[in-house]
């Protein structure tokens, strides 16, 4: 810290600017600046170290791992020979990858559309004043409080084809009471999406409700004075005002939906016949069932890439909002 770097060559210190050091040695402006910079870096250091250790390192490791033959014996020998793009071509060559990718897209889009539309409708509904508004609003938060795995297990029972509550309810209404919710390859993905919509509604509702509170009431009043219908007011005044909030909800929703794993494992284990496999379950299966960590890393990287694209998109939108 107190080495004699460059200070000898530096012009004599101006005691007025930097103050005299206790040792009596004059302090050069250069050294003062250095010290200031050092302090600045000191403040940044914890964040940088944290990011590097817990985000940077795993990320780089994961990318490297996807080019390695990383098997259980690696844990003993520490050797994971590079195998070029073998893992990548194996993953892309496996028909399951395309299937899982397509199902991940369906799952994400389906979940987001459902969550958002119902969440927005509820948020608008709760901006009105009526008795029990607060209580009802907090009850709707319930699915959010239940751990994902618990929701999965409960819904698996509800969806049971013979003994499930849902089918017996439909039966008593005179509707077909033998819907194969989780047991048909064409229905299972839809059922998983339905559960995820149920789980995601509270988040969407809360954030959008908060956003609606920020929209000035006067704007709506002015619009209705100008003769705009309720729908027109909503479309041309409320929605544009809500845009930043909508972006946040959709992007955050996207990032938590695209990586879905726990819900699918609890509901269907990816079945029946892989009809609910997503990129998340595929990563899990490759790494922790087959113990092929290289292949798992490939799918993991693709997931990270997809999320990163949306994160950048989100940051850009946010930056534009700030201007």
């Amino acid at each position, binding site marked *: 810290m107190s080495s004699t770097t460059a200070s000898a060559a530096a012009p004599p210190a101006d005691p007025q600017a930097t103050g005299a050091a206790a040792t009596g040695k004059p302090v050069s402006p250069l050294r003062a600046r250095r010290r200031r910079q050092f302090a600045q870096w000191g403040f940044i250091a914890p964040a940088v170290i944290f990011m590097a250790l817990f985000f940077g390192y795993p990320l780089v490791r994961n990318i490297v791992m996807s080019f390695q033959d990383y098997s259980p014996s690696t844990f003993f020998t*520490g050797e994971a020979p590079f195998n070029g793009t073998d893992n990548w071509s194996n993953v892309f*060559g496996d028909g399951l990858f395309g299937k899982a990718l397509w199902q991940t897209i369906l799952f994400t889009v389906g979940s987001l559309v459902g969550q958002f539309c119902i969440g927005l409708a509820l948020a608008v509904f709760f901006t009105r004043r009526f008795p029990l508004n607060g209580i009802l609003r907090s009850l709707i938060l319930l699915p959010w409080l239940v751990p994902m795995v618990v929701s999965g297990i409960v819904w698996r029972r509800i969806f*049971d*084809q013979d*003994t499930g509550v849902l089918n017996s309810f439909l039966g008593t209404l005179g509707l077909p009471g033998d819907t194969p919710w989780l047991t048909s390859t064409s229905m299972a993905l839809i059922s998983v999406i339905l559960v995820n919509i149920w789980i995601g509604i509270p988040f969407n509702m809360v954030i959008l409700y908060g956003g609606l509170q920020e929209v000035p009431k006067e704007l709506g009043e002015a619009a209705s004075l100008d003769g705009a219908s309720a729908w027109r007011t909503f479309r041309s005044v409320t929605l544009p005002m809500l845009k930043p909030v909508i972006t946040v909800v959709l992007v955050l929703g996207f990032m938590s939906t695209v990586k879905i794993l726990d819900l699918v494992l609890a509901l269907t284990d990816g079945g029946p016949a892989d009809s609910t496999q997503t990129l998340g379950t595929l990563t899990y299966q490759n790494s*922790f069932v087959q*113990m092929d960590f290289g292949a798992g890393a490939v799918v993991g990287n693709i997931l990270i890439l997809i999320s990163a694209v949306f994160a950048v998109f989100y940051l850009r939108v946010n930056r534009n909002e700030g201007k």
Partner: protein
Amino acid sequence: MTEPSPDGQVRRRRTRRILLPLTVVSTVVAGTVLSGCGQQRDEDVYTVMNSSTDESYHRWDGDTLERCSKQLGITIEQQSVPAAQLMTKALRMASSKSLPDVLQLDASEMPTFAEAGGLIPLKDLGLTTTDIPEGIVDFGSFDGTYYGAARTVNTLALFYNKDTLDKAGLKVPTTWEEMRSTARKLTQGKRYGLALSAGGAEDGVFQFTPFMWSNGGDETKLDSPEVAGALDYWKSLLKDGSLSKSTVNWTQADVNDQFMAGNAAMMINGPWQVETLNSKKGLDWGIAQIPVPKAGDDSVGPLGGGVLTVPNTGDGERERTAAKIVGCMAGEQEQITYALNSWMVPANAKAAAVWRTKAPELAALAGQVSTARSRTAKVGAQWSSVSLALQSAFQSALTGESSEAALKRAQQQVTSGN
């Protein structure tokens, strides 16, 4: 320092005051992260890692270890982690050189660990296979080397509701044809004739093996007519309506729930359910061998359960002591105690003979075990790929595809995966 210091001095001291804690915090964080990797092993304490996270299993194992500690004059500690995490946890411990002295692995996972060079052959450490039936030696072996000592083994059997069968005047089925007609007759209202698990995980594959093997099929050739025949048999049960359509979504625990709730008259399940079954008063159940394709065929079930292994820790002295712990835990008397507690069958033939007199109601199980096979004996560490391909195949077939097409794809999947 006591003098009022000029401006620059204050600033510098302040900077230092902040910088110091920052450096300390960063160092501590980095230090903790790095030192987490290299745990030090305690000289006098030996550790046994298992998946006995259930209270009763943890207690039974604790009692066993206490007796073994006394016998060997050492301290033994039990570490239990959930079964699903045991393998990855052990692998991580391997890379940080902190493996336990004794590791209890599920027998289907043992080959993966052995293939990686993580286990010491038990014979090198002085443990023999005297009195252990060949099937169970295979069960604990990989590539012809004996790595895992089983204390007890389990398998699958046919459980049936005695009252329901008596009321219908039906006998316990012994062949596929009998099981099919019995199940059809017992299917009434909300009750199905039979329940089994065809779920998309190891549970479903475990349940498929007795049908595949008894029919002469084999995991090395999934597209053989024998395997397709077994799958077609499952399909016929489903088509008859004797199996619930939810079968593809059920785990073995779900199957047990259905049986206990009276929604199934018979089920394929394992002895680990007995404790739960006995908790329901008024349920009079019986147990029999899984029916075979034709009268006179052998009923070949899958062997299940854990094996005790000695991981390669590089410390020969400790490994020899660890083998003594394994020897004690898998000793005849300990096997009988554990088997009676957990409703499983002792691995050792002599112990099994004693056990048979003490648990006569499970005699059918002992018969099933004597012909049972290990899942990994033929394909070794490749079992996990075979299992995944097979799950996908029988689920496809049960939801509409033809058995042949589904199994052909499964075989291609296994072949191309390597």
